[in-house]
Each structure stands twice: as C-alpha cells, then as structure tokens.
C-alpha cells in the first residue's frame, strides 16, 4: 500500500518536471485558443512560446531592453516570450543563432549596433541585410568615464594626459570589437592620443575594474555607470552623441569639445530572413507598441537609455548606413 503511494509520488514529480518546461507552452496555447476560438487555431500566429534571443549576458542594457520589450510582447501577443541569453563573439553568437532560426516568427532576437560591425571586424558573417528588421528601440551614446579622483576634469585634459603618457591609459570595454571598444579607438584615432584597450566580458566587469582602480577609464554607456556616478565614485568626461544625454545634462558632448566624433550604440529587434509577411507585421506592431508603452519609457529613463523608435523600414535603412560607416571606419583603426 505504502509502496504504491510512493510510486505515484515519483510519477507525479516526473510529470511535474515535464510540465515545468512545457508549462509555458501549454499555458500560452490555452490563452490563444480562448482568444481565437472561431478561427483556425493551429495556423494563427502566434500560438506557442516565442524565443527572444539577447546576444549579451543578463543584467546589461541590452538584456534590460530585451526583457522589458519581451514582457510587453508577452501581454500583447498572449503567448510566453522567453528571453534567452546567448553570449559570445561580441554578440555574433546570438545573432548568428537568430539568423539560423526557422523563419516562423517563434525565434526572434535583440540586435545591437554590433550587427553592423562584426563583419568589418572579421568576427562573423553577420550583417543587417541577413535579417528582417522589426524596429529600433533605443540609442545609447558612449560615455568616457573615469574615477572621480582622477587628475583630469574635462575631456581635453584627459586627452592631453593620454598624449603626455602614451600607452599608460587603459580603457576598459565590453569586449574586443564591441561598440565601446570602437568608441575608445575612434577617440584615439580622432585626437591622436594613445590608449591600451582592455576587453571584458560585458560592461559590468569593466566598470567593476574601474572602481577597483585596475584600469584608468571605461568607454561604456551612461546607464552602466550611472549608479556609481550618482554615488560619487566615478565621473563622466564626455558623451559621444550629437546632443547631450538627458540622464546627464551637465556632461558635454565630444562635438562641443571640438572633437568631431559621434558614436552611439543602438538596439532593435530582428527576425530571421524569410518570415511570412503577416507574421512580420504582427511582430513589428508588437515592437512598436512595446517601445511606446509607459513601462518601456519608465524603464529606459530609469536606466538612462534613450528610447528612440524607428519603424522597420527606417531601421533597415539606418542599419545599412551604419554598416557602411563602420566598414569604412574600422579597417583604419588600430584595435590591438
């Protein structure tokens, strides 16, 4: 008698285990079925879980944007949107993964600025033309950040210091060939200063190394240093956007300081090439609504990201221009 009871217990646990990974699926299906009972349930998109691939590790700006938009899309589309982080290769791993996904709309991805850079860098054969772009969500300028007690208070002084001490300024970034690496290299190229570049596995460890005094500067996004700038441990010398960053209105742009350079990261959403038009328009609409949502606006302001929507068409055009820009810029840079 007792034995039977235990057997049932084990079987129950086994079933539960099977469900815990499938629970999302079935839950989602039921929901859509409720919504579309009269229409043909099988073919109506979406009717199962959507995978949203973020090509960077959890916690960073890209992850945040991916997850916020993902959670909004979940409500909007009525199916679970599961965010998976596929990191490595400056985002190339995650993007290649999305590129190779079945073009059915159930595998989409967050695509960062690196999409238009990795080919020029020779990392992977990823370029905007390989994807169906769904819409841009954000733009984030690079911010040159140093410890609060550093001997320079302006970007001019910093550049002068770097010129006086060639090779002594170590600038941390979020990975070789990442946009923040290119930003620092672009600054060196433009001003003639000489930096040493230290690639980290994401921006957070680079900021940690700066706080610990292991490197002299980081070029990452304002949001990634906000907590510690507010806390008084770090200071931002300049941002690389055309206009001042709304999060830090007191920080000058490079252009104001007479350095003609504008480098910003951006992020949007993309699907594999060849998804059906009706599916694409459902996703485009979801991205558009997600970016316009109050939730997204709050989160992006809170985290110092600049929500900046571009429609699928505009985004496609923008990304291909960026692709041309980096393909001209990067081969001339000394990145090692």
């Amino acid at each position, binding site marked *: 008698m007792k034995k039977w009871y*235990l*057997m049932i217990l084990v079987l129950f646990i086994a079933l539960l285990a099977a469900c815990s990974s499938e629970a999302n699926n079935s839950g989602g299906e039921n929901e859509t079925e409720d919504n579309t009972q009269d229409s043909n349930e099988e073919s109506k998109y979406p009717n199962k879980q959507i*995978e949203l691939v973020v090509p960077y590790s959890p916690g960073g700006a890209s992850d945040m944007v991916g997850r916020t938009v993902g959670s909004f899309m979940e409500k909007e589309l009525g199916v679970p949107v599961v965010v998976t982080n596929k990191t490595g*290769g400056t985002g190339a791993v995650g993007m290649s993964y999305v590129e190779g996904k079945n073009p059915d709309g159930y595998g989409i991805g967050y695509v960062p600025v690196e999409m238009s850079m990795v080919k020029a860098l020779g990392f992977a054969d990823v370029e905007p033309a390989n994807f169906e772009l769904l819409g841009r969500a954000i733009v984030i300028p690079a911010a040159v950040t140093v410890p609060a007690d550093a001997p320079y208070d302006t970007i001019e002084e910093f550049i002068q210091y770097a010129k006086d001490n060639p090779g002594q300024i170590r600038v941390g970034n979020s990975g*070789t060939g990442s946009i923040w690496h290119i930003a620092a290299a672009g600054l060196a190229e433009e001003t003639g200063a000489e930096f040493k570049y230290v690639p980290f596995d994401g921006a957070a460890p680079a900021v940690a190394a700066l*706080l*610990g005094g292991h490197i002299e500067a980081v070029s990452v996004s304002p949001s990634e240093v906000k907590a510690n700038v507010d806390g008084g441990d770090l200071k931002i010398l300049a941002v690389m956007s055309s206009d001042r960053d709304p999060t830090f209105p007191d920080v000058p742009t490079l252009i104001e300081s007479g350095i003609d350079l504008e480098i910003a990261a951006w992020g949007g959403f993309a699907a594999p090439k060849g998804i059906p038009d009706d599916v694409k328009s459902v996703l485009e609409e979801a991205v558009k609504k997600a970016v316009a949502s109050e939730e997204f606006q709050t989160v992006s302001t809170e985290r110092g990201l600049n929500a900046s929507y571009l429609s699928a068409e505009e985004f496609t055009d923008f990304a291909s221009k960026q692709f041309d820009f980096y393909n001209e810029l990067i081969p001339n840079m000394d990145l090692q």
Partner: protein
Amino acid sequence: MIDALMQVLQPSVFMYMIIGVILGVFIGALPGLTATMGVAILVPLTFWLQPQEGLAMLIAIYCSSIFAGGIPAILINAPGTPASMATAWDGYELNKKGQTGLALGINAIYSALGGLVSTIFLLVAAFPISRVALSFGPPEYFALAIFGLSMMISVSGKSIAKGMIMGFIGLFIATIGLDPILSYPRFTFDNPNLLDGISFIPIMIGLFGLGEVLSQILESNKKEKVKKIKVGRIIPNKQERKQMRKPFWFSSALSTIIGAIPGAGGDIASLISWEQSKRFSKKKKEFGKGSLEGLAASSTANNAVIGGAFTTMLTLGLPGDSVTAILIGALMMYGMQPGPVLFTDHVDFVYVIIILLFIANLIVLFVGLAGANLFSRIMLVKREFIWVAVILFSIVGAYALNNSYFDVWVMVVSGIIGVILRKLDFPLGPLILALILGPMAESNLRRSLSMSLDGTAAYFFSRPITVTLLSLAILSLVFPVIKNVIKKYKTKNS
C-alpha cells in the same frame, strides 16, 4: 528598520515567500533548471506585485533552489545545480552508508546557516566587503582560478595521472568556441552550435545524472540485492556539530567574499571551500568518502554566496553573480537603482531586502528539515522507477537550459562517456573543475597581459593578492610531494 519590518511582516509577503520556496525547491532539485533560470522566468510575473512581495518570491526562489540542488546530489549523486557539485562528493557517500537523513539534515541546516551568516555580513559590513571584492582585478581572478585548479590533484581520487588526464580534457573542452579576448573561433568546425562552446551544465547532467543511472543499471545485473534503507536521524548530534563548526565558519566567510566578487559564484565558492576545509581538517582522508565536514563546507558555501552577491549588487549596483544580474533589473523596475545611492535615498529598502533574506533562509531551514523525511523516502522507491525518473529529468533539464537539442545530445554523449569513465575508474571531479575554472583562468590571464603596461608577466608580481593566491597554489602542488619524500626518507631510515 522598523518601517522595513512593518513592510515585510504581512501575510501576503509570507505567502509569496512560501510559494517561492516551494518553486525553488523544484527548480533546484531538478538538474538543468537553475536558480538563474527560475528567477529570470519569474521576474516579469512579479511586476504586478508590491516590491516587497515580488522580492520576497524572488529571494525565496534564489535561496531555496541553491539549497535544493543538494538534495538530488545526496540522493542520486546528480547535483541539481552546479553549486552543489561538491555536496555530491560527500553527501552521496553518506547516503550509501545509510545516513541519508543526516546528510539531508546537514544540507538543510548548513545551507540556511550559511545564508544567515552571509546576510549578517551584508548587514554589518556591506561596504568593506564590496571594497575587498573590487580589489579583485583580472590578475586576481586569474590567480583565484589557478588556485582553484590546483585542487585538481586532491579530487583525483586513487590515481593522480588519471585525474590529470581528465583535468586536461576538461581544459581542452573549455577552449572550444570563440576565444574570450579576440573572438577567434577555435575547434568549432564551422558548426554554429559550437561557437559559444559546449555548455557546462549539460555535461554535468550527463556525467552525473544519466551516467550514474546507466552505470547503476549495468552494475545491477551482477549483484541483485535489496537494500533496506533507513532514513535515520536528521539532526547532527553535539559532537558532529562541533566537528563541523570550523568548516562552517570558514566557508561562510570565504564564500561571502567569493560571492561578492563579480563573476564568481556558488560553483567556485563551494569547490574552493570544500578544498580549503579539507586542507585544514584533521580528518583529510574522509573528504570525498562521506565526510560531515566536507558536506557542511559545501552546503554552507553555496548559500553563503548569496549574501556576498547581494552585497555587491546593493553597494555597487553591479551583479555579484548571474542571479543578482537579473535582480538588478527587477529592482530598477520597482524604481530602485541599486548602488551607493540606495543606501542614502532608500535605506529602508535595503533593510527590506536584508529582512527578506533572513526570513527566506529560516523558511529554507524549516522546509529542509521538515522535508528531509519526505525527500529521503524517494530512496525507498524501487530503483527502476528512480532510473526512469532521472533519465526523464536529465533530458528535460538539458533541453530546458537553452531550449536546444544540441545540449540534449551533449548530455547523452556525456552520459555514455560517464559510464565508460566510471568503468575505467577515471575520476570526474577534475573534469568538472577544469570546465568551471578553465575559461576564467584563460580569459583573465590574457586580459591581465593586455593590461600590463609593459606587456610582461611582471605585472602579476606587483599585486599582493595575486602573489599570495599563486603562491598558495604552488605550495598546495609542491607540499604533498615534499611530504611524500620526507615520509619515504623517514621510513627508509627507521
């Protein structure tokens, strides 16, 4: 503080916390479902809750899933999360000796205590701890990884040569994929699945879940004997508690700091704590063969990491591990930016988190002890049923990790290799060790070299922590050799 207590002491907060603990136990106990995954999935669901309710649930999941990872490690030698790798080494042996209840009891008690002590550290020394964590730059990470790798010998079992072979195979597997500094593809054979390397968790599930079951099935043909398993007592007696006191305090302190270091988490902490407790133990020989000290060290360590990880998250706004990376996002959704400013602008909220951590650990203790009897009863079930269940869990777990069939294949192949390795008596510990620490050692060595101003290795020797850790690593390698030589010399003379 009073305000914070008032916020937390509400029935709804407790309700969400208990839901979180129960979910966490399942997530932790099933290999392949990790704490990170559990928290990530639930974050979007907590937004419609009050901040203290949502955080109660997330913190409860985090604490209980790390604790629960030890349960399958003890019962079936398959760690539920990478952080309970070392729990299996001693816990499963204790289970085989019939001390199942005691092993589960120790896992529950010391997980909770480790969590509580690290929370106290967070309460009283958050800023000093975060300063220590920041003093770890790339050279220190490299040294820490080498220090950890030096224990390869001590987890090699009978044959050091076999252990080394396994270790180097592990290091080799760790190099597959895009290289961490220049992103150059290595051994990928143009297969995109290999670009990101072979993930560690499917290998672990294969070797320890599927592999264990397959070898038990093969063994069972030879000797068919029905063992009567008694749960036995759960609470350790006074003498045992005394024995475990030292590894407990040691692991708590060490793991809080390892947890605070960004990028080093429960897996590394429990391995290093286990090894160091062994080094300082009077009963070194028992480690890996059912040592209570070893079990206490690893159980304490993986939960003590949590306090450390929260310290870094709250004081610096930087993730201490992958779970806190997700929690930072959750906090921001509630309008709280973790970082130094949190302590001046929203200090009440910091207290809310600390109180929640305390309560979560107490519930883990309660659930762990109350459930020990129930969990261990699983062992009374016919072995065939357990086998089927484990195989099922292994497949589901490997797939659920990244929703990838490639991972399932990695798991199955690892399982089959696991059987062969067990047959040939190759130890699995060094392989796992190398897989966890290899990437950390490589990327930080190369990062350090790119940081060194003159491009030489001299950079390492100007840094005290690095020098200390590297010296300790060398000592731990050389010392046994010297000891052996002296021993031989002595026996020759006498």
